[in-house]
């Protein structure tokens, strides 16, 4: 499992550039599913058929990750950029990014124009790829890059970039591996472009036309010094979403998850996230509406290059999903 997580998080595929991660996941799930396809926007969908039921259930995790895109190359070869997804400038300075052609860059800051202790704005930052002029810069406008930060494991804590949402992808792959018999048709959706627009899950859900959809994604925690209050702690179990910035989970889906956790004695927490949302928000509004919920893996420092999850939450998340599938 840790080896799988390492390969997933260390793959670089910011939104709109999911080819590499898709190939990796496709190779993992191909032997485990009855069939698979790539949807028009690039989401990977693998499914297991049931002989007993014609209900369709979606489990969705997004393959894309936040990153940056070059917007301008100045005469000295410094690269200006914008975020792909929600980038915080505070965590950019000193970070490294890697472009698809292998070029590594260091994010620097206009020292004089960033005054005092205020956070820099995006246009006060630049990427130094070691170029000396516009002409020898190996990066062009429109090129995307991912943050660089390999996986570190420390006790049960797993730390890396792109836990959001490769850890969800890992949960889906492992659930698929452990699922002998599907009680319903189960569609495993590895979606694209969640961080920018939720477009991948929305369009794949339209095609599948499911009876229920569950997103598996990360959520914030409320257990770090002076953070915003939130009743989710790292290592206290997977979180069952009640509500976030984009959706209210369908009560039946929420209760199904709670019941499944109770029956199988899996620790869980209830999640109310004040900002941000997941693929579930988009899937809920597809066609005539889809009962949707979200299983969240608690994660500290979301959208920084060092996102931290607890392995026990991940393992319990897989157990909970399997229990839900049995029950649902």
């Amino acid at each position: 499992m840790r080896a799988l997580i390492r390969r997933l998080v260390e793959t670089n595929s910011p939104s709109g550039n999911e080819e590499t991660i898709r190939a990796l996941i496709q190779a993992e799930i191909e032997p485990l599913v009855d069939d698979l396809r790539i949807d028009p926007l690039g989401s990977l969908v693998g499914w297991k058929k049931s002989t007993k039921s014609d209900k369709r259930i979606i489990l969705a995790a997004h393959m894309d990750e936040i990153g940056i895109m070059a917007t301008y190359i100045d005469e000295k070869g410094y690269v200006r950029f914008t975020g792909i997804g929600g980038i915080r400038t505070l965590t950019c300075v000193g970070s490294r990014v890697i472009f698809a052609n292998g070029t590594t860059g260091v994010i620097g800051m206009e020292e004089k124009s960033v005054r005092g202790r205020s956070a820099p704005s995006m246009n006060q930052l630049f990427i130094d790829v070691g170029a000396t002029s516009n002409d020898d810069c190996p990066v062009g406008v429109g090129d995307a890059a991912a943050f660089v930060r390999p996986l570190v494991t420390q006790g049960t804590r797993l730390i890396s970039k792109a836990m959001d949402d490769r850890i969800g992808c890992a949960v889906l792959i492992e659930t698929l591996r452990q699922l002998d018999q599907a009680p319903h048709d189960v569609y495993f959706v590895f979606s694209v472009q969640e961080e920018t627009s939720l477009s991948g899950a929305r369009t794949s859900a339209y095609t599948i036309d499911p009876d229920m959809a569950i997103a598996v994604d990360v959520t914030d925690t409320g257990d770090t010094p002076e953070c915003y209050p939130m009743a989710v702690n790292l290592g206290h179990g997977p979180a069952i979403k009640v509500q976030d910035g984009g959706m209210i989970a369908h009560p039946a889906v929420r209760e199904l998850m709670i019941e499944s956790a109770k029956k199988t004695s899996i620790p869980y927490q209830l999640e109310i996230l004040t900002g941000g949302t997941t693929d579930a928000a988009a899937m809920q509004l597809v066609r005539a509406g889809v009962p949707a919920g979200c299983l969240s893996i608690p994660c500290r420092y979301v959208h920084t290059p060092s996102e931290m999850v607890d392995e026990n939450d991940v393992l319990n998340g897989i157990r909970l999903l399997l229990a839900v599938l049995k029950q649902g």
Partner: protein
Amino acid sequence: MILKALSEARGVSGDEQEVRAIIRDAIRDVVDEAKTDTIGNLLAVKHGTGRDRLRVMISAHMDEVGLMITGHSSDGLLEVRSVGGLDPRVLPGSLWDVGPDRLPGVIGIKPIHLLENGESEKVADIENLYVDIGATGKNEAQKLVPIGTTGTFATRFREMGPTVSGKAFDDRAGCAVLVELLRAVAPVTCDIHAAFTVQEEVGLRGAHVAAYAVEPECAFALEGTIADDLPKNKKGTSPTTELGKGPAITVMDRSFMADRRLLALVRDTANELKIPYQIKQPGVGGTDSGAIHMSREGVPSITLSVPCRYIHSPVALLNLSDFANTVRLLQESIMCLSRDTLRREQ
């Protein structure tokens, strides 16, 4: 030149019929079908020659930013609100055509002699601006201009050497490119579904339903986009696009991520034929592609634009060679487009 007629036509979001009529006439003889849908989009089809024909949607929006009359003051001035992203900095002193009969109006401004300390540094809110049509009282104003009437900038199209100026190049430039494409292109292998959409400036609403109806397999949105190639105070600032450097290709904006296969198609086509092009500053603006790509099962999409200075203001500038190169790049790309373009390596 169709751009002149389109630029001078009135077409504030929701009130696009004048633009639609011009386009309908212009494409009548070169398309196989044309209809206006329930929301007001003009949807035309040019059938292809192949057997298993790819459905390609090409959209350009007919609407423009402008004003809506929301009330009348006791003095006979017109109270207004903006439709779409109208910049309040450009309103004082501007000339307007109000309503279908193009009643002349102006947004006035207090003479410089009467300004109090600091007043010249403030931008007036649109709530405090009025269109003056010279009416002598509330009754006359009400009779001439009912509430709900729209107003457009009263800007004439002008030729300035290789450059032209006019209002509403966002997105009449795109409409003109699409009209020129339909006129120029011989039937290609794919079916071309031309969508002249409404209400883009207020939330991509026309494209939303157009894409649902057309069910395309891939889509191109055409735009007149920001060119900010002006003297800058701050170093390291992108001009977004530049006049004279060719059509602008969008990789990512606030509304969508361009499909990488279509990006490769357009870039390869441009490189092969030595058509100049530029990559638009990523992360800025949004287009009909934002709605189209999320339609139904998902639609791989891309946006091509003619660079225009000063969009969303009374007057914009574009370079005619950029315009011609946009038509050419689009046409050549469409001619190379097939199902193979969209094939993924599995």
